[in-house]
């Protein structure tokens, strides 16, 4: 198994770097082309959510994104400080939430309802787990790999 981990200060600019890394590593892990957009969006949503949580709670700790390949799966975990109050996997109707965002809410609010980002991810990614304990929340997403990873598994440098 090969792992690459990115830890970044809670700044929105770093979410772009996290996406770039995830996209590059996922491509190298032979994730299918059409799923790469899914990886990119899922990482973007989970990392921006994590950064938002740290910023809004005044937490300076880094956010961790961990990418790993294990047998036939490519896994991304995004870990932030803070425990989730509600069960984020509780189904949110995205269509209903969108029209609610449009109908309700202050005119100067440009945010989708709380939980919307994670709901988008759970709509995209089949293999999704959110765990929250010990003061940390982990969003874990997996994708099947087209084949084993000769690229990442080469035994020696030369």
């Amino acid at each position, binding site marked *: 198994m090969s792992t690459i981990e990115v830890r970044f200060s809670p700044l*929105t*600019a770093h*979410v*772009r770097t996290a*996406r770039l890394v995830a996209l590059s590593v996922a491509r190298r892990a032979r994730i299918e082309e059409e799923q790469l*957009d899914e990886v*990119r*969006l899922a990482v*973007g*949503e989970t990392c*921006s959510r994590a*950064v*938002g949580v740290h910023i809004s709670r005044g937490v300076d700790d880094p956010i961790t994104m961990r990418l790993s390949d294990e047998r036939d799966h490519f896994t991304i975990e995004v870990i932030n400080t803070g425990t989730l109050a509600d069960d984020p996997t509780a189904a949110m109707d*995205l*269509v*209903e*939430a*969108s*029209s609610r*965002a*449009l109908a309700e*809410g202050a*005119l*100067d*609010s*440009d*945010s*989708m309802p709380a939980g*919307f*980002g994670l709901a*988008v991810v759970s*709509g*995209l990614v089949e293999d999704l787990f959110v765990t929250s304990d010990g003061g940390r929340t982990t969003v874990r997403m997996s994708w099947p790999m087209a084949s084993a990873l000769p690229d990442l598994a080469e035994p020696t440098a030369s």
Partner: protein
Amino acid sequence: MVVHWKLHRDGPMEEDVDPDLSVSIRSEGDRTVVAVSGEIDVYTAPKLREHLIDLVANGQYQLIVDLEAVDFLDSTGLGVLVGGLKRVRSHDGSLHLVCSQDRILKIFRITGLTKVFPIHSNIDEALAAGADS
């Protein structure tokens, strides 16, 4: 925000160039075309929001946001577009989108926002459709 008001009627009224997110604004009759390029995410969305707020503050309520050169859009970006729509609607305006890219259309589809925004596959179609369509 650097604003260049150009003298030429056919050039962009405003050009905000940035490797992360560029925004170019021009008039087309009574419509205002906001051409965006780059990635619209938690980092750049505030900038797009500012541009939309400025336009509405300047009395421009018939907007077309051209997303053809956008290669990433997340829920924060959607929030800004929904916010823009709320603002122009409060002035009986409109916000049309130009987007033919499947990867971008997908997030509009799964969130039901394809029913909320008139989405056109090119700018001519958006202009031809008229603001009220």
